[in-house]
């Protein structure tokens, strides 16, 4: 099936949920509302003509100030059987920053969702093991958000472990090779 | 289980084969290179220690302060300061490469319009202090001298100055016309006696880079 046809199938099935269909090159993305994401995803996974058995990628995007809904969670789906793919995007407002987890549908979403939370602060409800993944557990802030400072003169305020690191450096100075 | 499999199982055939291989290898020639005593061949274009090409005519670097290398360095380890001498001519006041930050991508060499920069084939430079691996203008020239002292022949050519297979028509003129650089001083002026900051007499200067000095910084401003 062509991506366009898949998008139209989704639109016909979940008419009120689909907000927008965009196309770039031969890739089509479908922007949907997050409320029924689990239902849409189960349909995509289980319907025999689509059969998206393979979640290639799951990631977040921060459109701060560019779009109404600040975040988007982007799902890249692929069907190994039919060799077609589609991109599903779920818009997430900043105020209600959570979405249903798809780990029950694709086990591989587990770490992707954790990473998405780690980087953007988007919560995934129903995730079996929900915590940070790449950043330390006591990290504050979500680094891939567009308002996360690239460079800061806040010093230790940036990360509370920073002071401790500086102290350790000071303590270990005597071992330095001169 | 066939008879062969049984024989293999009882007599450890595959292990004996492996042992035969290791025994054979024991008698073959080792591949180890005893590093400081023998060195492996380094291929041209190796991206090692940074150096300024010392212009055989003037005995100085060829940099025209176009800021291209500074702007494209992915790790932002190059910094450049343009000064003005008493005749209000620009000259290279500072040129620093923080080699510890450098990722040796070689972009600076390729982008330089006058082929002033080079990543030499020296790779074994290390030190106990960070200062020794912080290359300023003079050290960059010194690196070049050290590098060319080891070279045989009279000219040097770096393959990233004008990469093969890339459309020459899109390169700047100076790059198109770049010939292999002579590595021994050709002019009578010995390199160390040339004062770095002498008042520039336009007639003495090599015409081509001087011509570009004026236009390049402006172009850069548009870009940013």
């Amino acid at each position: 099936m062509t991506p366009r046809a898949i998008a139209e199938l989704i639109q016909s099935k979940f008419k009120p949920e689909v907000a927008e269909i965009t196309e770039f090159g031969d890739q089509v993305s479908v922007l949907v509302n997050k409320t029924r994401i689990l239902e849409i995803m189960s349909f995509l996974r289980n319907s025999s003509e689509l059969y998206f058995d393979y979640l290639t990628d799951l990631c977040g995007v921060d459109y701060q100030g560019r779009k109404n809904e600040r975040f988007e969670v982007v799902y890249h789906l692929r069907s190994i059987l039919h060799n077609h793919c589609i991109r599903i995007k779920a818009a997430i407002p900043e105020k209600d920053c959570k979405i249903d987890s798809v780990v029950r549908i694709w086990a591989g979403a587990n770490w992707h969702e954790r990473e998405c939370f780690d980087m953007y602060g988007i919560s995934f409800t129903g995730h079996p093991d929900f915590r940070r993944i790449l950043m330390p557990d006591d990290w504050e802030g979500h680094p891939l958000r567009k308002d996360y400072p690239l460079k800061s003169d806040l010093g230790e305020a940036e990360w509370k472990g920073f002071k401790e690191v500086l102290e350790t450096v000071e303590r270990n100075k005597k071992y330095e090779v001169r | 289980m066939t008879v062969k499999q049984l024989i293999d199982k009882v007599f450890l055939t595959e292990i004996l084969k492996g042992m035969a291989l290791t025994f054979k290898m024991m008698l073959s020639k080792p591949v180890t290179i005893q590093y400081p005593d023998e060195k492996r061949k380094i291929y041209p274009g190796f991206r090692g220690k940074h150096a300024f090409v010392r212009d055989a005519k003037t005995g100085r670097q060829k940099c025209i302060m176009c800021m291209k290398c500074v702007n494209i360095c992915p790790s932002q380890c190059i910094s450049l300061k343009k000064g003005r001498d008493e005749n209000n001519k620009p000259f290279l006041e500072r040129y620093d490469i923080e080699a510890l930050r450098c990722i040796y991508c070689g972009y600076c060499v390729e982008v330089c319009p006058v082929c002033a920069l080079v990543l030499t084939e020296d790779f074994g430079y290390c030190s106990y202090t960070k200062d020794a691996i912080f290359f300023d203008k003079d050290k960059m020239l010194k690196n070049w001298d050290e590098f060319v002292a080891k070279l045989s022949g009279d000219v040097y050519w770096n393959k990233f100055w004008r990469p093969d297979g890339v459309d020459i028509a899109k390169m700047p003129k100076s790059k198109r016309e770049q010939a292999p650089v002579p590595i021994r001083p050709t002019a009578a002026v010995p390199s160390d006696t040339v004062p770095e900051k002498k008042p520039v007499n336009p007639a003495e200067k090599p015409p081509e880079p001087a011509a570009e000095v004026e236009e390049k910084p402006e172009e850069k401003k548009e870009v940013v």
Partner: protein
Amino acid sequence: MLKKKELSINMGPQHPATHGVLRLVLELDGETVVKCTPHVGYLHRGTEKLGENRTYPMALPLTDRLDYVSSMSNNIGYCVAVERLLGIEAPARAKYIRTIMAELTRIANHIVWIATHALDIGAMTVFLYSMRDREWILDLYEMVCGARLTVTYPRIGGVRCDIDQEFMDSCYKFIEDFPKRIEEYETLIDQNRIWLQRTVGVGIISAADAINWGLTGPTLRGSGVAYDVRKAAPYDAYDQIDFEVPVGKNCDVYDRYRCRMDEFRQSISIIKQCLDKLPDGLVLASEAPPYDMPIGKPRVMPGHPMGEILPGELVEEKVPFDELYSATEVPKGELGFYFVNDGTARPYRMRIRAPSFVHASVLPKLCEGSLVADVIANIGTIDIVLGECDR
């Protein structure tokens, strides 16, 4: 009553067999693993964030540092993605050169994999034999681009410089010689009963599970799923090359080992075909962006008073974004780049779908219920590099 309590062991981040800084918290009941929790992120360098603040050519060297044993493939994956995004077509010669390089990298990567995997299982000699052969590939890299590990050889719209006759000769010699080297590795381990005991029936993941967990590359193909991006969505010169995708059937460590060993042979055949067919011409497309690509202004909706959208400002009308997901088959699996472009020369969002990240997530599934020694075999078989996993 005796109380039963599991022994918890911290395997890593400094451990010889975790291939970097992977940390596994194992709950052991005797020698049996009851629970395995991987912890990653020790090598997190924020590559995605860095990429968002650099132009496309400047972010290219970052991809070297993802999977540092197959940096060439990462570069190619990135370049292919950016080319698709910017609508550039690389010249045919560049495409063939890239294919040669990608396959050389596949060999180099699998060499490192067999070396470390065998070393973990205790066959130390294979490690040194294979490292000897990797040296040759690194020499080939150095010949063509002057660097051995972080090559930055491909560039957007082609490759940096042409390959010369010396490279071709050496490459021909290599592909002629290498099958003998593979036989050497196989003599030592392929039929060795200890190797078989350690690998057959260990780390089983069924085809359905493997797809569900998102595995790719030889790790997936070992389970019998013939999914290969080179076949499914060809890029570079792969559509003009004849090759097979080796698959396993028992879904265990041994089959994944066999898959990779067969990929050695397929790669050799691909390189040979590419060298034979190598067309003439330039290696860089004429529309390729220069290194100092102008950054440009973000696309805005027409008639916006500011000309540019300031952060925090709500814009009702949407701004056009180019979105592209591009996948390439790197030695470890499917390396995907997802770009959101707002019209500037910087990606608005650069997402790297790293195969190692996905593969590391499947470790608990593979390890739980097996022995400590199998954990080592499992870490080896999924072939992860933490530079890529943590990005």
